[in-house]
């Protein structure tokens, strides 16, 4: 098996970083939205 180390500044590396950011955003944004919604539902519990 022949393998090539990809230099840190290679376009593939930058592409992967972009892909990482996008992938985490796609799952992170709905989760953050859910957290905000749920915390706002929890508030009445501590209001009384």
């Amino acid at each position, binding site marked *: *098996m*022949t*393998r*090539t*180390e*990809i230099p840190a500044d290679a376009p*593939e*590396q930058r592409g*992967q970083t972009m*892909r*990482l950011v996008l*992938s*985490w955003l*796609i*799952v992170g944004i*709905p*989760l953050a*939205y*859910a*957290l905000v*919604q*749920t*915390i706002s*539902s*929890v*508030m*009445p*519990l*501590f*209001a*009384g």
Partner: protein
Amino acid sequence: MSFLDRQHTIAPPGYSRWLIPPAALAIHLCIGQAYATSVYKNALVAHFDTSLTAIGIIFSIAIVMLGVSAALLGTWVERVGPRKAMFTSACFWASGFLIGALGIATSQLWLVYLGYGVIGGIGLGIGYISPVSTLIKWFPDRPGLATGMAIMGFGGGALVASPVSRQLMSLYDPAYDPADSTSVASGSAVAMLFLTLGIVYFLVMMIGVFNVRTPAPDWRPAGWDPASIKSKPLVTTAHVSARNAIRTPQFWLLWIVLFCNVTAGIGILEQASPMIQDFFRTGEASLVTATTAAGFVALLSLFNMAGRFVWSSTSDFIGRKPIYMVYLGVGVVLYTLLALAGASSTLLFVALAAVILSFYGGGFATIPAYLRDLFGTFQVGAIHGRLLTAWSAAGIAGPLIINGFLDAQGEPGQLVAADYRPALLTMVGVLAVGFVANLLVRPVAARFHEPAPAATAEPPAVAHAGAAARSAATTIDDEEEGR
């Protein structure tokens, strides 16, 4: 469709393993919707002019199919690899919604049973186990963290789906007010919701399908020494097949552990809203309003989700057996306190229930890593699938225990804290049984291990598929070199 084949999912050198958790989350966030069915339950009751039980059956069928498909298709998932499994799960899950939408639009309840229940339930089972084995292979140094992230997504899926579904139904039916708990959406709005969710979930799950990769057989995380595993007594470097695993006492002890942990958690989840009101009832009225009770349910959902990530990650440091001793042993103490002193203070009641629910979530998320420790990575996904039958069984036992005791104590709306005591103390007994089962877990006997190939230390499945995998990896590497 060779893109979906296992040999085409081998990661090229330099592929970041941190792309795998969001791929797994993309699946689990979507299938976690299964726990948000209460949002449109009343709308379906009104639309089909039927009972709550008849609509509740849709969810029950889906959960039973989850357990059955995870148990029966686990070995297939291991064989075809995560990408084909995730794709299949997305097809079943989305088709379930589309057929369900057709059933609602044409007022055919049996189509909803078949669509969301049976077909969607198969998607649930395949989707739940599809990323587990891959995550464990990418994170041999932190398997608890990896599976905790994915299974946290299942808890989070319901938290996402509930508010989104309410908003979508109000969009499709302007007469429906999501802020008013008595407002009910029209059947056509629920049908449109199913159609939308089916399409959106399919697209999101495809992101997981495209991103998921399996590590090359010789891949290791930077700076990680596989020899570090050998220093831990309950962590094996051997491999046990799914067929052999179910012949070991360890599998059945973990089945009991999961069953007991889930049964106890469901005991609170099932009754959360009426329970907090009943605990603080004085005469006919309760000190806790319906809105506050809804806040309590939301808080439990948060702790359930957070527990999946926090406790499962913690298990990487303190070990799997000790963390289950915490879930079950401390659970016994907390459940006893809840039964005997929970009514003394709202804050104490809420705190005890929240920690118990975090243990419930933690129990779900840590079990794949426990299985990996005892049985190796060879067919851990398939073994996990078989173990999930404990979840299905607990889904029946938990509500039966709690409702059985409460029915014997009196009418709903008239119950007080003391009426919950027999049910809660029974759960203490259930947790104690799980604690003893966990205490009895020992390393799996060598006679159940797969024979190690003479020339290589790779697990059998990897060795068997090694030539194809290496060939595929070479092709990818050569293509990269050619660019």
